[in-house]
């Protein structure tokens, strides 16, 4: 466990929640009788409060794993636990989607017909746990904390894509999830916006310690954000190598010029490139 997490626990914030344990998960797709193995006996332990970066070539099956945790897809065999509670496993092939694990989608999934504020309030309104006024007060203050005041009454389509992503993360955090599942959320952003988004994400993370399961194929992003990198093999997907990023948090963009960052980049780039080549020659469809 990294130093930051230990500090957070010492600071008396209580036991962190949101540990994910993936045990021997296999996923076989069976379109038209031709079995395709997307995930091959994958095991992975993610401690609570960790930022775990899943790195692999496009189409390697990373998203399949994320969908299994979120409860969008079934698994063929194996088990997935969240804080020792079985999400899916034998006899329960598909997890129930819930507000303890919230996905931030690749292309963004803010409802374009709701204002940013209504989007942020959506989860709690649906769950009906609090009164409307309390929910909207909380939504406003969370938006203000994330530097989003002034955009409450705009529709998502009216604000920049970087802002939209921030609103989406705030929408997820409103529900106090244990885990945030990111599915290459910054893929479509330009590199300048991306760097701003990374710092903003870390800032949000330092305030709300949640477990982050973050899929990417961008090594720079992976090393900058993550406590650990899990480098995946090309399809079928399973961890090829796990690398600890021993750069202390809190981090900012000066990390990118540090020697340690360069060393890590050198260590990982070859590994990732190898898998990308395999995926390329196998002609994997991106996605």
């Amino acid at each position, binding site marked *: 466990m990294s130093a930051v997490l230990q500090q957070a626990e010492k600071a008396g914030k209580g036991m962190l929640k949101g540990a994910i344990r993936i045990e021997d998960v296999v996923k076989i797709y069976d379109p038209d009788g031709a079995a395709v193995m997307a995930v091959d006996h994958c095991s992975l332990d993610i401690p609570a409060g960790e930022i775990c970066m899943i790195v692999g070539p496009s189409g390697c099956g990373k998203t399949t794993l994320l969908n299994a945790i*979120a409860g969008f897809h079934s698994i063929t065999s194996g088990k997935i636990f969240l804080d020792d509670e079985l999400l899916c496993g034998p006899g329960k092939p598909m997890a129930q989607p*819930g507000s303890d694990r919230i996905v931030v989608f690749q292309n963004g999934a803010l409802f374009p017909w709701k204002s940013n504020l209504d989007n942020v309030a959506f989860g709690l309104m649906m769950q009906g746990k609090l009164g409307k006024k309390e929910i909207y007060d909380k939504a406003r203050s969370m938006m203000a904390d994330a530097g989003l005041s002034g955009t409450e009454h705009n529709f998502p389509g009216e*604000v920049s894509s970087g802002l939209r992503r921030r609103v989406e993360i705030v929408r997820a955090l409103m529900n106090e999830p244990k885990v945030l599942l990111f599915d290459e959320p910054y893929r479509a952003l330009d590199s300048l916006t991306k760097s701003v988004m990374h710092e903003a994400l870390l800032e949000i993370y330092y305030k709300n310690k949640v477990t982050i399961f973050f899929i990417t194929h961008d090594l720079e992003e992976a090393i900058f954000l993550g406590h650990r990198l899990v480098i995946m093999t090309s399809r079928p997907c399973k961890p090829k190598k796990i690398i600890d990023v021993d750069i202390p948090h809190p981090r900012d963009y000066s990390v990118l010029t540090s020697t340690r960052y360069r060393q890590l980049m050198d260590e990982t780039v070859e590994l990732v490139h190898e898998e990308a080549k395999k995926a390329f020659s196998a002609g994997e469809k991106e996605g």
Partner: protein
Amino acid sequence: MEIDQTVALLKRSMPFQTVPNDVLEAIARLARYESYARGDVIYHQGDFADDVYIVSSGAVQHTLGIGFQAIHPEKILHSGDVFGWAAVLENQRSRLAKTVCLERTELIRINGEELINLFKASPETGDIVMSRFATMINKEYTLPEEMAGHVPHFTQVPVTVATGLTLTMFRLSQWLKSPKPYLMLTGFGILLATWYLAVEIWKLPRFADMPGLTEVVKEWFSKDPIYGLSIYTPEYYQHIWVSVRRILIAFFLATALGVPLGLFLGWSKTFREYVFPVFETLRPIPILAWVPLAILMFQGSETPVIFLTFLASFYATALNTMLGVETIDESYSRAAACLGASKWQTFKEVIVPGAMPFIFTGLQISIGVAWFSLVAGEMVSGEFGLGYVINTSYTMVRYPTIVIGMVTLGIVGYVSSALVRMAGDYMMQWRVRELALGGR
């Protein structure tokens, strides 16, 4: 640049548009002309704001710094656009943005303090210009209102941020200055001229029996029409009302039944397995083929016509609604599930609003085909209505009345689909604003 050229440029810019000529000339005398090359930076964020700029030609990229909560941090400015308004703000005399020329750009710059001094001499004009500045900052740059609150004012009346009305009026005047309305009028002109020339002047062979333009217009606006139908006769409005009433009933029924059916067809796979094949078999049958059955099924002359009108609308509405549900991005339902929405909540909050753009496309088509089948129905059975007018005028050799009926159908049909479009825009503000940003 000559003074009058500068005045012309000022008149094209939003803040200075309504300023009287003598004041404009005084402002023009303050203006200095400058030209920049591609890539030149006019000013950086944080620089002292001295001048206001107006683009004469070229393009300038205006990028607001982070932290101003602008909704569109970037803007491209073209001829007639004003920027650098920090120079006229009170207590905010540093640049909020960086501006870079994207191509060779010519512009005029006016010193902010000199401009304000000039307005002190003519405070009324000054307040108008400044309130327009405030509107622009607020609406065009979508900065918070407090930023516009720094705009100085000169008269005793407290300054208010001008409403969207000013901007709407400005856009209207811009539209009138653009070629669009004149092109539109030209289009109508060509149509009418061709008709007039073909029938009345050249008397082309195929057009010999056609009613001419002047004949139709005379008849239409005559207090004592030869064939008994003009804008002064109550029968005219009775026919319109009968047709409109049929459309209203049929369109209302088609929407009330077609939208829910389409939503469930798209939402439930099982439901679709039952219903869709039947639906797809009945749909290609032309409306006219239903006429005999409609007459057999329903009594009188009114219900068969309404039934035929309903049928065509119903298919269009249901089918488009179903397509709408099918095209909703799966991420939306998944996000709703993640956020703890139940199946019914997802249907209400995601499926229905998500399908809305397609539903309204369906309704647009629906109202169009409703008029189509209404006229077909009225020609076959019915005692009133515009279709009936056209058909009986033919058999009774009242040719100008045919054209009156046709043109009236065109106008009423256009108004009805415009109303549907307006209803759609009203219900889908999110989409209107999104499309507006795309420049569509």
